[in-house]
């Protein structure tokens, strides 16, 4: 058994500091195991969120050596343990305590997005006929586990603090899955332009890089949505076509 040092952010509501913890570790462990071991033996009152421990619930988001990641899916053998490993809370959301942040803004944003609105069913029993090929794309977006790491890394939110204007990558893919669902009849293009401010995204793809579900957020969701907004509102030829339609 070997030992490693972890520097974990301790403190409440913005104030705090890294505290060093040295602990033993074994092969196959992930960062969340180490945090739990420290919590059980050295720091009973340490705040950390977790649930499934298998990369499916998106609760244990944090910044490990400065990189936004899920603690449960970061294996120790991916880290340089000859140096202290830093673990700190996500920076884009208000700090609560230790590794826990207040992510409630995300839940408020979702409420503002027009809900799923089904078209008329295809069959008399109230069901729809939809081909698998037509739902592959929205299914990709529905893999999202709402860990909010993409929100954490998005510079529009992280550096420019435009939480009141921009919905962030998580909710752009949420909007995309609704827009691309063949059963949905809603239209969110105007809202994408005016309320969700998709224009703020300048496709640096940071969100795609940190997505633990490997959803191609920028290429498969944001860019196609941007194109549709452009077609709808900024295409002079298309506008003319609509007049005569």
């Amino acid at each position, binding site marked *: 058994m070997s030992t490693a040092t972890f520097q974990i952010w301790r403190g409440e509501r913005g104030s705090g500091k890294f505290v060093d913890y040295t602990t033993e570790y074994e092969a196959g462990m992930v960062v969340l195991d180490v945090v739990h071991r420290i919590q059980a033996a050295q720091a009973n009152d340490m705040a950390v969120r977790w*649930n499934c421990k298998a*990369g499916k619930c998106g609760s244990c988001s944090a910044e490990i050596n400065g990189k936004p990641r899920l603690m449960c899916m970061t294996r120790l053998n991916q880290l340089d343990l000859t140096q202290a490993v830093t673990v700190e809370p996500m920076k884009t959301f208000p700090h609560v305590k230790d590794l826990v942040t*207040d992510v409630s803004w995300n839940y408020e944003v979702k409420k503002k997005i027009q809900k799923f609105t089904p078209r008329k069913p295809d069959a008399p029993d109230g069901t729809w006929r939809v081909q698998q090929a037509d739902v592959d794309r929205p299914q990709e977006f*529905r893999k999202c586990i709402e860990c909010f790491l993409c929100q954490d890394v998005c510079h529009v939110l992280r550096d420019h603090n435009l939480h009141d204007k921009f919905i962030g990558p998580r909710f752009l893919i949420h909007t995309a899955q609704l827009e691309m669902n063949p059963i949905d009849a809603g239209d969110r293009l105007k809202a994408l332009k005016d309320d969700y401010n998709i224009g703020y995204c300048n496709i640096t793809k940071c969100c795609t890089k940190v997505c633990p579900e490997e959803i191609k957020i920028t290429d498969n969701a944001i860019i196609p949505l941007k194109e549709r907004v452009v077609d709808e509102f900024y295409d002079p030829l298309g506008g003319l076509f609509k007049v005569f339609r």
Partner: protein
Amino acid sequence: MADYPVHEYDVLVIGAGGAGLRAAIESSAAGAKTGVVTKSLLGKAHTVMAEGGMAAAMGNVDERDNWRVHFADTMRGGQYLNNCRMAELHAQEAPARVKELEAWGAIFDRTKDGRILQRNFGGHRYPRLAHVGDRTGLEMIRTLQDHGIHQGIEVHAEHTILTLLKDGGRCVGAFGYDREKGRFHLFHAKAVVLATGGIGRAFQVTSNSWEYTADGQALAYQAGAALLDMEFVQFHPTGMVWPPSVKGILVTEGVRGEGGVLRNKEGKRFMFDDIPENYRSQTADTPEEGWRYTQGDKSARRPPELLTRDHVARCINREVRAGRGSPHGGVFLDIAWIKEKLPNAAEHIKKKLPSMYHQFKQLADLDITQEPMEIGPTTHYMMGGVQVDGDTQMSAVPGLFAAGECAAGLHGANRLGGNSLSDLLVFGKRAGEYAAKFAKENSAGKINSAEVEAAAKRAVEPFERGAAGENPFAVQHELQEMMQKLVGIVRVENEMQDALSEIPKLQARAARAGIGGNREYNTGWHTALDLDNLLAISEIVAIAGIERKESRGAHFRDDYPDKSAEWGKYNLKITKGPDGKPSVERMPVCPLTDEMKKCIEEQK
């Protein structure tokens, strides 16, 4: 009474997994002001971990399927200890509940003709599980969550309930705290729905998260409701066994549904060695026939890997005990072998089982399209729970309802895979409907402030003892180790008696649990407060386990290895006796109607 924030509701739902959210949606749709309390953030409950799918006899893939077959399968799987009325309602109503999810935005995998695709699963005669790859639970919880927030349900995220409040015999609310600030909250409600899930944290190797500390079962028991079938704890046959830190994490039955096979270290498919008599006529004779079944050949019968979970778990246990296990104490689950049968097997596996591929790649450095997985049994599901009326889901306490895993009845002695997600929907809806009805018919009850003050006083005691008190994490770990060893997958009388004598010692230590720091997001404090429920229910599991002197379904006793016809007539019902101790009673199983008997006969 101190000045706690008071939240007034018609219906209060405790728990925000599939059952809780479905109940809240129904109650709110019926016009009842509905609040939901959840220990975690919204959308993180254990439902999210469900992989394989939800069972509903829609007959989209095999038109021979209908509710009668589903009913018979559920009863056979439960070894006929099920509440047959619940099994009937479940089989009849599940298809409508699944279709409803699609109308709320869920996107299921499709058949070639564009309908909802269904897959094979253990104990189900026909392909019956509506699914989305191997992340069906996520699809379900997200759909309910997104539908619910647009319907005016109020969610109290990261709140824990300490006690239910009563006015005379009736449940009139609940008292608890928010995890973030550690403040107490009073929930005043005309009806309360428990949807708190299972008890997995009582065991060491479990697929359950920290939340599953038997809260609903314990709250109901303390409030005077009866518990049923508490000896039946399901050990899922396939959990990860390596690396140690992920031991217990679930590997979906879907792997076997897609053609995965179980082998011991000698490379032998040992499941063919032991096929129970009542399943023999439905089980494949050869590996070839089993393979054809998984690929949709309607003339083939299911491979023995798809027998019920209790049986598969015991066979794996037998191989390991006989020294034929894998290097880390499990057996091999092999899906990679299908490359002998399919040209593009690796891609096919990744498409059908994406999160399993991901999970093993990331956590165990193993590519399941190339190598077999090592797996072993893991504590997964509690068949027992709060005794409820099959139609309304109301417990013996008026105004107190329960649905989903924390309620008992549907699954009897063993739950079939896929019947849990459909259970959540069918009985979540019913609980919400009847709770709203109860709230309409009854005025708000009176809060007993002495009851509230006592709970508040008790809850802050760990701070008075401070960090010098017992470490709450250590007490929990010791309980888990003890239960795993003494009341686990194979049980004997004297070991369970040992467990019963250990529990009071742990209870004494839990009463001395202490914690430093303050009340803000203090996970040590939360763990200390969860101990009471976990210990009370662990004791009841052991008591029920000792009482049932036979082996049936998930309850396997080395000292009584056979099923007894006499014991097949009873469920065990446990209530809090006048002396404050659990009192056990044999309750005759729910009688089958003639129609039900016919359904079962048809499928023999």
